[in-house]
């Protein structure tokens, strides 16, 4: 018999076990397909570290199995390593990063985290610097390929995420995979996903359209509320999208978690992976 709360739903596979936090909307880059129109100087809409830690505690109690932290660029926050120490001690954690901020000081701050189940997912879109940097900014490629081995050296797990506009070119993808392997990242730690037509990509008319049925219902907490998916709290032309908003209430976490579960239970099963977006 199925249980009725989030814990049972997660355990039975009816609700994804990962919870996401948008730690900030600010970023040192301004990628052309950014979901959140993040860039230097945008409103930060930040979740403070104490909130992330408290909500992670609640998430663990509700049965969530792992945490994702995204932005913006999470490592713009100087206290992120300390926050990660607490978060990753509770649940396995992945942090999405543009990979451009890992100087010696930040790498040293990450070193104590090597004993925790923490991975950093770094964006890298092409094996050619000019192709990669066209969307992500000057010198991005060089900084990323420099950062990945150094992250691995300090003992932090690394994943590579590639975002593509349109159908992948098999030859280019083969070269990219060769590159990430050479940097020390295995194939199973390479994620490829399409540009989603939301945020800056929507304004530019790029990417694929998505509906809730296309997106796994991964509870996503932001300073503006709780959303259906990390693809939900997007910003287009400076305005936050609310079409994938679940609740404005984020604490206690059971309120958005239970609302998300009710929404999930109310839709036909098996529709959560139509475009394979993860």
């Amino acid at each position, binding site marked *: 018999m199925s249980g009725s709360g989030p814990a049972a739903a997660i355990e039975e596979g009816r609700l994804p076990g990962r919870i996401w936090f948008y730690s900030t909307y600010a970023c040192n880059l301004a990628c052309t397909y950014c979901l959140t129109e993040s860039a230097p100087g945008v409103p930060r809409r930040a979740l403070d570290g104490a909130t992330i830690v408290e909500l992670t505690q609640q998430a663990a109690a509700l049965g969530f199995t792992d945490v994702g932290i995204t932005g913006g660029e999470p490592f713009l926050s100087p206290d992120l390593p300390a926050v990660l120490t607490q978060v990753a001690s509770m649940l396995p954690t992945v942090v999405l990063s543009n990979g451009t901020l890992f100087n010696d000081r930040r790498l040293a701050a990450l070193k104590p985290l090597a004993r925790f189940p923490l991975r950093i997912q770094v964006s890298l879109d092409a094996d050619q610097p000019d192709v990669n940097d066209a969307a992500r900014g000057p010198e991005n490629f060089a900084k990323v390929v420099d950062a990945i081995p150094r992250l691995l050296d300090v003992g932090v797990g690394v994943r590579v995420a590639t975002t593509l506009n349109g159908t992948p070119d098999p030859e280019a993808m083969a070269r990219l995979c060769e590159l990430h392997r050479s940097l020390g990242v295995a194939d199973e730690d390479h994620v490829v996903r399409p540009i989603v037509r939301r945020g800056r990509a929507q304004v530019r008319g790029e990417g694929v359209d998505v509906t*809730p049925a296309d997106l796994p219902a991964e509870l996503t907490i932001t300073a503006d509320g709780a959303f*259906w998916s990390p693809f939900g709290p997007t910003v287009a032309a400076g*305005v936050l*999208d*609310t*079409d*994938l*908003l*679940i*609740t*404005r*209430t984020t604490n206690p976490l059971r*309120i958005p978690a239970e*609302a998300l579960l009710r*929404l999930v239970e109310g839709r036909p099963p098996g529709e959560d992976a139509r475009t394979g977006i993860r």
Partner: protein
Amino acid sequence: MAPRITLVDADQAPLLVRHLFAAGDPGVIVGALATVPELAEVAVPFLGAALGPGSVEPKAKETVVLRTSVVLGCRYCVDARTVVALDLGLGAGHVAALREAGAGERPVTVDDDTAALVAWTDAVALAKGSIPDEVHAVLAERYAEHQIVELLVTVGTTMLLNRLCTALSLPSSPETLARLAAEGFGP
């Protein structure tokens, strides 16, 4: 007059309340409440229950809604509920009297039952404490206890909407304004 917040439309309707937009534009009150979907999800059905059909005769209930809106000075609600009152068959003269009487004044052209209901409504809507015993007693001669409770919920719910619509400067719809003009209630 433009609203003071960005109202949610069908394209941006949050998941919990998307059904409220399925049959077309649900109006500015829902558009405002939908910015907080977990509230709108329960508030909108509640508003329907509180202001919709109940144990109190509809014309009397609408008299309370309209009168509350008048004494609280909610332009949007007075416009919208004038149309509802007319649709319920409250005569234009009766509606005009409810709209024009000052707080605590007996509207002209109304009967004693309506005058008692209006006096009670004005007292409840404007009271800073309990209403006087004699005002309650006059209403209690005409309504059962459960109906008084229903009327109190009607006043309170209307006051909630009065404050919401007024503080947010919610605009009356063009359809409402056209109807009011056609019925002689133009600005």
